């Protein structure tokens, strides 16, 4: 009986702590003008946490540089984890907008944007979003950071058709983003392709490679997340089979570091077709890579550059008036470390696609 009273007391204390924290963290009536608080919702646990962390790191790095260069106008960055889960994403959003009263938001994951989409529209805040969303893109307040890969994937499909590949096999990650990309490749190609899906959580792809080996095809189109794609490539020689002709979609170029980490070097992929985006060879890119290493001790991985660009893009476009903010974002032509940021009428970032090849272990660009 005494222990039950202790438990109930504990419960009441926890609830009181939550109430206290919530009331203390409440909205500040004396709001300072401009962009003072930025909320970032990223997946730092759960699925794709490695990408989510890279994305968040990029944005944090950009904010630290900005704050160092603008001591009179600091921006507070509040990072919340969504665990690649819609429920947690909603909690993160409610906390950032309700308690922290952030001025702007950057979001990483697809489950998150799907869960908060209606709230974003009703809260009337422009949001920079990395992942694909379940609802069809339209003229709304969501602007996609990942280069409109749908456009790029279609170009890849068209390229394969134009190059005379008559019997392609596409292997793709069973994930909403990758499925859209795969569908776009097939759409660009103009007719059906043989398809093999690999679960996003799959760690053992031996069976899938065995399946691929038994198929008849003239080119293997890879629409896989980087780690899975690299493991797929590595598996062929393990099964004593020569590598097929590959065509990689845009995900590969963004996740090139993962490929290098797993394969050692990319010389085994010489001659492979790669859809990528025109590389920004500016000093900014080299500079980003070196400052990232200095700050985090590792090379920037997939999506770190887009996190970095997202923060800086927001600095360029933010306005307290939402329509102005939206217009600024719609009309921007911003050169980031990931390349140019221009948006079409439905908020998809227009890609500057290059269909190229891998030579001497590097993507020719």
């Amino acid at each position, binding site marked *: 009986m005494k222990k*039950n009273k202790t*438990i109930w007391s504990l419960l009441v204390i926890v609830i009181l702590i939550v109430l206290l924290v919530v009331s203390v963290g409440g909205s500040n009536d004396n709001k300072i003008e401009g962009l003072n608080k930025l909320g970032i919702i990223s997946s730092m646990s759960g*699925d794709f946490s490695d990408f989510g962390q890279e994305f*968040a790191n990029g944005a944090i790095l950009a904010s630290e540089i900005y704050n160092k260069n603008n001591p009179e106008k600091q921006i507070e960055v509040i990072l919340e984890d969504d665990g690649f889960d819609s429920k947690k994403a909603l909690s*993160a959003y409610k906390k950032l907008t309700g308690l922290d009263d952030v001025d702007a938001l950057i979001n990483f994951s697809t489950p998150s944007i799907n*869960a908060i*989409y209606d709230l974003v529209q009703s809260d009337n805040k422009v949001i920079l979003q990395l992942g694909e969303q*379940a*609802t069809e893109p339209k003229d709304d307040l969501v602007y996609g950071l990942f280069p409109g890969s749908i456009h790029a994937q279609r170009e890849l499909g068209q390229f394969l058709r134009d190059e005379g590949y008559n019997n392609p096999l596409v292997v793709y990650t069973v994930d909403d983003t990758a*499925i859209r990309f795969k569908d776009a490749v097939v759409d660009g190609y103009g007719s059906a392709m043989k398809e093999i899906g690999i679960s996003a959580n799959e760690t053992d792809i031996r069976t899938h490679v065995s399946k691929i080996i038994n198929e008849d095809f003239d080119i293997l189109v890879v629409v896989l997340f980087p780690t899975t794609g690299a493991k797929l490539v590595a598996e062929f020689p393990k099964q004593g089979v020569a590598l097929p002709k590959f065509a990689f979609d845009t995900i590969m170029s963004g996740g090139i570091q993962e490929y290098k980490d797993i394969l050692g070097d990319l010389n085994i992929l010489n001659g492979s077709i790669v859809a990528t985006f025109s590389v920004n060879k500016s000093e900014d890119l080299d500079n980003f890579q070196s400052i990232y290493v200095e700050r985090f001790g590792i090379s920037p991985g997939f999506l770190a550059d887009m996190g970095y660009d997202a923060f800086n893009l927001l600095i360029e476009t933010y306005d307290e008036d939402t329509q102005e903010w939206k217009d600024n974002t719609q009309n921007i032509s911003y050169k980031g470390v990931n390349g140019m940021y221009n948006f079409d009428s439905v908020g998809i970032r227009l890609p500057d696609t290059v269909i190229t090849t891998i030579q001497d272990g590097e993507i020719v660009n």
Partner: protein
Amino acid sequence: MEYLIHLAILISIWSMLAVSLNLILGYTGLLSITHAAFFGLGAYATAISITVYDINFFVSIFMGILITGIISLLFGLILSRFKGDIYALASFGLNIIVFSIFLNWQDLTRGPLGIPGINRPEIFDFVFKNNLYFLILVAIFALLIYLLSEYIVKSSFGRVLQAIREKEEIIQVFGYKTQLFKLTIFVISACMASVAGSFFASYITFIDPSTFDLQESIFILAIVILGGLANNKGAFVGTVFLILLPEVLRFVGFPTDIAAQMRQVVYGLLLVGLMMYRPQGLLGKFKL
């Protein structure tokens, strides 16, 4: 305030899941790792009913209960033959089957793309768009499920369940068809979980298969074990703790580049500590 209402809604939904699982696990002693499947069935039934067939939310709840009832009956006919570790493994497999169906039957469920645009409940032209009203609605249903569960466990039926938990062979000697009891409570519990799924779908307005995987089943299991087996109040307490704990940890100041990971570590340590302090759960009567 919105944030608090949001947490209260999550607590209401997950307490339905915990109370319903407690009927199987706590009162009947069957380690079922398939609850997320029934949660998902209810959610998808509501999502498809609303978005494709324009069926009212409250009717979709009954659709969900019907579909989940049929599927859980079929599952239960298999599961009720087992007990102990075999029951757990079989239920584990069933969860994976249902998740695979959600993921791969793309014509029906849209697979990983999920189903967006699920409307809020509406009755007589009144739409529960305001989260406070939605909270009142879901809390009423949570209370109904709690009361139903209490009624079941305090009835003679409930006493048989607890006897099955203690020693199934002995109760069989008295002529009780224990498989039938296990089957019945499995179906009832599944239908309750389906109701939670319907509310979840309507609240989040988007569902996809990733919410209804094995991890979710384990999370619900953790709530029941932490709260205390064979105690519905314990199921509620466990829900409050496990829903609020990660939220409280959001306010703990860790460096941003390791904050998420540190919160996971602290969360895990707190759970381990709680189980060391109270291995039977916070309000439980016996250990698993």
